[in-house]
């Protein structure tokens, strides 16, 4: 009651202060967007090459792979989990997809005598395998109760091992032209960016407009309350991690299309980039808080940063240091934002 009355007095007595408060609120909520805009403005002043359409698409294409993984990571972290395995899952699904997507006459053909497969075959294989590996993560977490960190740490190592066994340690290349065309453009739009955009749209709807999405927030917000409230926590956990794994499969397809081959050691450390993008985007590791637009902005911040620093001729080693500091600062700001208002 006290709250309401004083709110009213504030609006009537001191409108400018109220506006200031709203401005602060917006700045708090969308702070990372302003950071992105400032970065874009800053870098474009320093390097005229930055704001060319070519380079912008370049940034988007470079961000697409970890950007796609960050979408799944957003669901996972919002549910108060983490997935360390997506990099390895990308590698394993990538080599499997590549082995099914080689040209008929490829050197070092994985399946000898296998005819050239339509693109849909490796794509389905990668997505299905990714979802399967993810569901194992989710099942372990749901049914044994081991922490997500441990379950996915195990999967990270296991999936990498399988990728190495599957390939014998050598890359799989000579992909079909339809496969490598995924690295190309439709009109002016790079296909990886289109795939990323579609993944963003689907995940957005999934998180905001489905029962599953509501359950993700509930599980992350208070898993015990979710259990009492009619949320099937185990089933939803499996679905969350399966979705994250499936998106790693999507990222693998984009990766294979762009690079033209997949190495079993590919995408090492990508899981951490995806976690970083998610975190910069304001998804809270305490659970219950996370947005898809945040994940996109987070990925773009990292993408713009890497691209910009390269354009400015900053040493690659120094780039890492800047990136690390950005992540920490982002989380500090975020924690202040989410600090309990009393």
């Amino acid at each position, binding site marked *: 009651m006290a*709250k309401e009355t004083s709110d009213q007095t504030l609006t009537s007595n001191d409108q400018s202060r109220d506006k200031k408060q709203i401005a602060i609120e917006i700045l708090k909520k969308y702070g990372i967007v302003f950071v992105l805009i400032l970065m874009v403005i800053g870098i474009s002043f320093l390097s005229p090459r930055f704001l060319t359409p070519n380079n912008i698409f370049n940034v988007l294409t470079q961000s697409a792979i970890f950007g796609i993984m960050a979408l799944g990571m957003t669901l996972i972290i919002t549910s108060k989990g983490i997935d360390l395995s997506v990099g390895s899952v990308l590698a394993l699904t990538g080599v499997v997809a590549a082995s099914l997507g080689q040209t008929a006459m490829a050197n070092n053909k994985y399946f000898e005598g296998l005819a050239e497969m339509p693109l849909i075959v490796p794509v389905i294989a990668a997505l299905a395998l990714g979802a399967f590996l993810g569901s194992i993560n989710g099942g372990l977490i749901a049914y044994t109760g081991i922490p997500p960190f441990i379950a996915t740490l195990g999967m990270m190592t296991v999936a990498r091992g399988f990728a190495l066994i599957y390939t014998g340690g050598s890359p799989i290349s000579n992909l079909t032209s339809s496969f490598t065309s995924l690295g190309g453009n439709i009109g002016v739009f790079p296909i990886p960016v289109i795939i990323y955009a579609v993944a963003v749209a689907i995940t957005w709807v999934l998180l905001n407009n489905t029962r599953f999405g509501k359950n993700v927030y509930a599980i992350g917000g208070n898993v015990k309350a*979710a259990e*009492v409230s009619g949320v099937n926590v185990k089933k939803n956990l499996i679905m969350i991690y399966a979705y994250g794994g499936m998106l790693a499969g999507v990222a693998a397809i984009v990766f294979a299309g762009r690079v033209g081959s997949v190495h079993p050691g590919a995408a090492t450390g990508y899981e951490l980039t995806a976690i970083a993008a998610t975190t910069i985007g304001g998804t809270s590791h305490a659970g219950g808080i996370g947005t898809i637009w945040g994940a996109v902005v987070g990925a773009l911040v990292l993408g713009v940063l890497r691209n910009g620093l390269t354009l400015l001729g900053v040493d690659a080693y120094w780039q890492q240091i800047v990136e690390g500091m950005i992540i920490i600062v982002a989380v500090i700001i975020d924690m202040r934002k989410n600090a309990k208002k009393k």
Partner: protein
Amino acid sequence: MIPFPILHQVIMYEMGWSKVTEKPNVLEMKNIVKNFPGVQALKNAELTVRDGEIHALMGENGAGKSTLMKCLIGIHPQTSGEIYFNGNLIENYSTADTLKMGISMIHQELNPVENRPIMENIWLGREPKNRFGLVDHQKMYEMSKEVLEIIDLKEDPRTEMRHLTVAKMQMIEIAKAISYNAKLIIMDEPTSALTSREVDQLFGIMRKLKENGKSIIYISHKLDEIFAIADRVTVLRDGEYVGTEETENLTVEKMINMMVGRDVTDLFPKVTCEIGDVKLEVKNLTGEKLFSNVSFDVRKGEILGVAGLVGAGRTEVIEAIFGIRSKTEGEVWIDGQQVEINSSEDAIRNGMALLTEDRRMNGIFPMLNVLQNMSISNMKKYVGKFNLVNHNDMKEDCTRYIDALSVRTPSMYQRIENLSGGNQQKVLVARWLLTEPEILFLDEPTRGIDVGAKAEIHKLITNLAGQGKTIVMISSELPEVMGMSDRIMVMHEGRVTGIIDNRKDLTQAEIMRYATGAMDEKTA
């Protein structure tokens, strides 16, 4: 035991050297104002605590009691106003400083370091050191023993905290306050998780502290406790000072009136309503160790009160019926049909609802907003075309229930953790009402809720029964059980010891006899 300056003062009075007739004030808080961005939490709060008195601080949730205490101990310094401690103006201090000054607060939610022993919890951050600068465990042990003796707690200081009951953890907190040589101890709803025997024990310790010249600020919602223990009462309402009274000059009605600013005519608006057929039947329900052979039935329009001491297994029985706790044996029948319920989903499908005992633990989603909190159990009904959620229906329902239950929130997008306890509870009640349940399990529905909201929730329960809903209500407050129920089921150590018709001449003592397992008249 008594620090010298206090002893000195006490002697002064005893010998009549002081010209003041009343004991001096250990604490004076004057014209305290506290503004938070957009909210004025305290407008003009006052509090004066005398030396060696137990002073109750009362008010509805959101009245500003906690904020006032947070101003006092330096968590949120006041915007304006003055605080005098031992006659000296104190300002610009941290929580650590208040401890040194002799002010100690025992918070409602205890935060013990569970995997460390009692003694390390007591001396956390000020461990005694030996001459090498290392922690002197022997000395710590002896010092802890000394403090524990003061409060008559027979626990080995080396016991890990997690082995203790909530009541004992609270005692440890008190021991800690004593170890700081606190002059003023603040207790924020210390009894909300205690059994009545533990409450008596706590009161014993409080009286002993008082005799030793300590002052206690006691925050509680339970009026009977205030009358039992407090010397004086200060009431706050909407962040403002209402008044301070000697407890002996107060009546329940007067106190409620001060708190809510209006007369709460009927705390238990129980009306007899038509009781229909048997709705729910539970037969021989048994769960591992916690309860066995529990059988009862409830009818449409009936309120079955469930009484018992903490640990009697009441919550566990309800959780087992609701499918979120495993049972080894037993059947649940609804409308004469046996049902299989193995999850909360099953329970909801069968028209059940469960308002849990511990709002924070398994009720609210703290960082989610009111809308999300209210709609989660009813999501199935909002899913429309292409399996997408229809937000408009959801918001409509939410608005309707905010209105119907008069939930006080700036908007449905407010995080639920920013609401007062009573309003959080209303949101949770709405969550379940949205699922249109036939059977409602209410576990301590008014715990930690202020008097005004309490009466509202009681009224709501009565209305629901009036609509023919079946209600099972667990409550540790006997007046509530007796005021609301048609029948009362009493449990003791996992067994049903009695199911009693609620009569006019039923006494609390009779229920207690069943609750303590002493059913025969001789021990009464």
